[in-house]
Every structure is written in C-alpha cells, then in structure tokens.
C-alpha cells in the first residue's frame, strides 16, 4: 500500500468511526437500540469479511463461531455466575479455539467442498445446541439474570440496561475490531493473506506457508465473530439456538456481499442496509426473510463486487 492510500484509508475509517460516535446524540431512542444491534452485527460481518474478502475463503458456517461466543459468554454467566468481562474474554478465547480446530480440519479442502464442510460443521454445532437443551434450553433459549445486567469495572459500574452504555460498548468493540483488522492488513502478514487470495499457487511458490496463513486468518475471523456473538448475548441479555442456525451464517455472507467483500467499511454498510430493510419489511409481512433471497440473487447476478467493491473499481482504487 502506498503512503497516500494508507492515509486515505486511515482518514476514511476514522471519519466513519467519528460519525458513528456522534450518531448517538442525534438518533431517537428506538434507533439507538437498532444502531447498537447493527454495530454488533457489523463486527460479525467484519469477521466474516476478513475471511472472504482478504483471503478469499467463503465459509457457509460462520454462525458456529457467533454461537460459540454467544454461548461461551452466556452459559458461563447463566450457570456459573461469572462476571461479564471475564465471560466475554473466555468467549472470545473459546471461539478462537473452535476456529483453530475447525480451521485445521476444514482448510484441507478448497472452494466448493470448503463451503459444504463449513456448512456441515455449523449444522453439527446447531444440533449440539439443541441436543444439550438441559444447558442451553434449546430453541427457547435463556434470558440472562438481572445480576448480569451490570458490569463492575475498576470501581465503575456500567449499567447494561442503559441504551447509551450499550451503544458505546458496541461502538468500542467495532472500533477495536476495525483498527485491529486495519493494522493486520497493513502489516506484512496481511499482505501475505491478500497474496494468497489473489494467487495461491504463486504465493506458495514464493516460499510462504499458505496453510498457516489461511489458518491464521480463519482464527482471526472466528474470534471476531465470536466476540460479536458474546457481545450480542451479554448486551441484549438473551441467548438462543436461532443464533447458531444456517440463517445467521447466510446473513453474515449477505451483509458482506452487499457492502462489498474485501472492503473494511463494506460489511458495516451491508449491515446498515439489510437490517434497516428487514426491520421495515417485518412490519409489513411475516415473510420478511424473502428479502434475503432477493438481495442475494440480485447481488450475485448484477453486483458481484458489492457496493463498495464497485465504488473501488470505478472511483477509489485505494480503498482497503
């Protein structure tokens, strides 16, 4: 990346984050809640995009990592009464470990079989949530107890029932993930990743370890998705098996494809558009998931690069 491209991206991402921060003072209450949800889902999409956009692996099973984080945090809080920061840390670690194990196995396959294998592993994870209903309460799920709605942090008490606190926590997580991914991509390791995406054979021939590069990105992606899941469970106080279902894997794919795979802001934009669209449509009909199908097909037929991918192609080649 050239100096000016680096600077442009830095300015763009900082600008987007600044805008998000200011937004909470402008938006009415209901929309603050929705924006909080969007930012958490954007972290999930960002994790998915790390894999699809920057190393070129399309997983159909990312709900499994989201769920690993969700249940890793939720169950330890619910059953063992762990404090929230501790549960969150554990959940991120747990999803990273799940990603390491699944990645080590699934990355032996490529392309279509990689998609099918990740789909199947995610299905196993979903069935596990249903099967261990004694712990997870299956489809009905669990509401976290009132005691888990407040965080004690260095003498401070954060009240999670306050919309402002939740918004800023979600914002912090998104900012952190965005900065981390940006730093990683700008580093030498990140350039190996994009090299693998662009030409795997040549990267291997140049002496880089392709498998470990992929695994590294897989773990980053899984941990980020897990962090999103953990945040979702803790911020909104509910965990349920829907979050482990195929639909959540597909939503991550949809957000990323719509916004533009391989762009940092793309997934955020995709989440923004899709969640708003689904929210509006769910007021009109119970069949609001129809929009998922329509958008997937429209994007894959006419905008395979997504919104920001198209913008990059036409106007802003520096976009990361």
């Amino acid at each position, binding site marked *: 990346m050239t100096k000016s491209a680096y600077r442009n991206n830095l300015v763009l991402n900082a600008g987007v984050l600044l805008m998000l921060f200011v937004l909470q003072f402008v938006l009415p209450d209901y929309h603050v809640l929705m924006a909080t949800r969007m930012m958490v889902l954007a972290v999930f999409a960002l994790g998915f995009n790390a894999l699809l956009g920057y190393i070129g692996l399309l997983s159909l099973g990312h709900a499994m990592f989201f769920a690993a984080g969700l249940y890793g945090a939720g169950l330890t809080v619910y059953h063992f009464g762990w404090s929230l920061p501790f549960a969150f840390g554990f959940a991120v670690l747990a999803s990273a470990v799940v990603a390491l194990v699944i990645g080590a196995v699934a990355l032996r396959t490529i*392309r279509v*079989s990689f998609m099918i294998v990740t789909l199947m592993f995610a299905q196993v994870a979903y069935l596990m949530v249903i099967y261990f209903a004694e712990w997870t309460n299956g489809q009905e799920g669990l509401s976290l107890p009132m005691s888990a709605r407040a965080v004690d942090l260095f003498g401070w008490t954060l009240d999670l029932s306050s919309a402002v606190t939740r918004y800023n926590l979600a914002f912090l997580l998104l900012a952190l993930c965005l900065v981390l991914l940006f730093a990683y991509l700008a580093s030498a390791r990140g350039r190996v990743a994009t090299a693998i995406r662009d030409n795997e054979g040549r990267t291997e021939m140049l002496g880089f370890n392709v498998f470990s590069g992929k695994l590294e990105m897989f773990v980053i992606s899984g941990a980020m998705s897990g962090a999103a899941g953990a945040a979702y469970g803790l911020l909104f106080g509910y965990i349920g098996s829907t979050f482990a279902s195929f639909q959540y894997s597909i939503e991550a794919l949809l957000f990323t494809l719509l916004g533009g795979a391989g762009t940092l802001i793309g997934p955020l934009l995709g989440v923004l558009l899709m969640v708003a669209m689904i929210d509006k449509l769910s007021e009109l009909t119970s*069949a609001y998931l129809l929009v998922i199908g329509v958008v997937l097909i429209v994007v894959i037929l006419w905008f395979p690069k997504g919104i920001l991918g198209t913008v990059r192609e036409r106007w802003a080649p520096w976009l990361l």
Partner: protein
Amino acid sequence: MALGPYLFLATLEGLVQAAVLCITAAGLSLVFGVMRVVNVAHGEFVMLGAVIAWFAASLVTGHPAIGFAVALVISPVIVGAIAFAGERLILKRLDYNPEATIVATIGLLYILQQTVLIVYGPDARPVDPPFYYTIRFPWFGYSSYKLFVIAAAIVIMGAIWFVLQKTRAGLIMRAAQFDRETAQAFGIPVDRVSAVVFAAGAGLAALAGVLVVPIQQAHYLMGADPLLLSFIVVIIGGLGSMSGTVVAAILIGLSDGILSVMFSPTLAKMVSTLLVALVLVFRPNGLFGKAER
C-alpha cells in the same frame, strides 16, 4: 416390546426413510453430476412438492386417492417448471460458476420458502394417505402406505436407471456428465440439457415430497432435513453415481432410522453430519475435488 420386534420396527421406519431419501438424493446427484452445480435449494423443491400435494388434496373432492394421484402428476411438473425458469433466469447467467451458483441457490431457497409462507401460511397441514389399510404383524400394526412408499421408490429408481442407461435422452445426459466440452463438440446442446436436468432433479424432489406428505405433514420449513440428508447421501455415494446414491441412501436411511428410534433423532443427525464432513475433508481428491477439474 422385546428387542427383536423393536429392531424390526426401527428397520421398517429406516427403510421408509431410505426410500424417500433415495429419490431426493437421486435428483441432487443428477444435477451435480451433469451440471456441476450444488443445489442448496433442493430441499425446498421437496417442500414445494408436499405443499402442492396438500393443495391438490384439498381441491379435489372425493376419495383421497384421487387427490393423491393428481398430486403425483402435477407436483413434479409444476416444480420442474419453476426450477426450469430459475435455471434459465439465474444459474445460466452465472455461467455455472460453482461458488456463485451456491450463493444463488441459497437465495432461491429463501425466495421459495418465504413465498410459500405468504401463500400457504405457517401451519403444518396433514394430507390423507390414499389408503388406510394397516398390516398386522404379531407385535404391532404397520401402515401399508409406508410399504407402498418403499415399493414406489423401487419403481422410480428403476425408471431413473432405465432412462439413464437405455434411452437416447439418458445417453445425452451421461455424455454431458462425462465430458461437457466433447459432448458440445459432438453437437449435444449441453446448455439445454442443463436446464432439463435441473428441472428433472427438482421434479424428483417434488415426487419425494408428495410421497412423504401423508406421513409427515406439509410445512414451509420442512425442506431443511431432506437437504442435509441428501447432501450426506450424495457425498457418501459419490457425486453423480446413481448406484452409489442408492446404497448410501439405504445405509443412511437405515442408520438414521434405527439411531432415531433407539437414541434421539438429533444425535443421529449430529453423528452422520460430522462423519460426512470428515469424509469430505479426508478424501480431498474424491467427490467434489475430482469434479473441480
């Protein structure tokens, strides 16, 4: 009930499931074999078949057998036509790129499923079997309809075999499967063959849906299980291989049936899904891998 008869019952249930699975998976396998397209919407074609069977049964008055017979004919035709349209409008334009078609068929899955939710509603609705006769075994009574399903599956698989091996259309399909480009060079309209095969695969799924609906009720979310199980069958049986599909369907149907009766259906699915995922990983040059070249 003693263990012997219990196991017998589980085996019968397993065979019924294997029969339906055979037909569904044959459709999926045919589509992958000829077109190299992984059709994630395949389960929705089963669901559509079942839902159309319900409409047929509720519109046709008189004996349930008449409605059932009507459904057996119109369901595959309507579903086949929908699939044909989908193939022409979407898959063909993507030039059958493997990854893009998977994403597109996921989109198709949601469109079909949610459209049925709008038109048909969220309820599970039963359809009467065409006949009610119960066969009395010494230990339990068993619905003769379920045995009819097994017989029907044998007939349908026989018909598929006949078409693929003994007719000109089958020869064309096999040629397109064996080597697309050479087939094209010999004047086979591979493009049109793809559309027909996609419709035929969907038609088979719809047929399975009609057969299963008197046992299972029609519901807009019923496509998920057949999809997963036929994926498993097709992967174990070898993609595009019909005899492999039959063997794998019987194996998976039986083991799933027996494990479901003995332990829990969820556990049975978990085990088979995990095993198949591992098969797919540790045979990277078989199945999907080979098809890639």
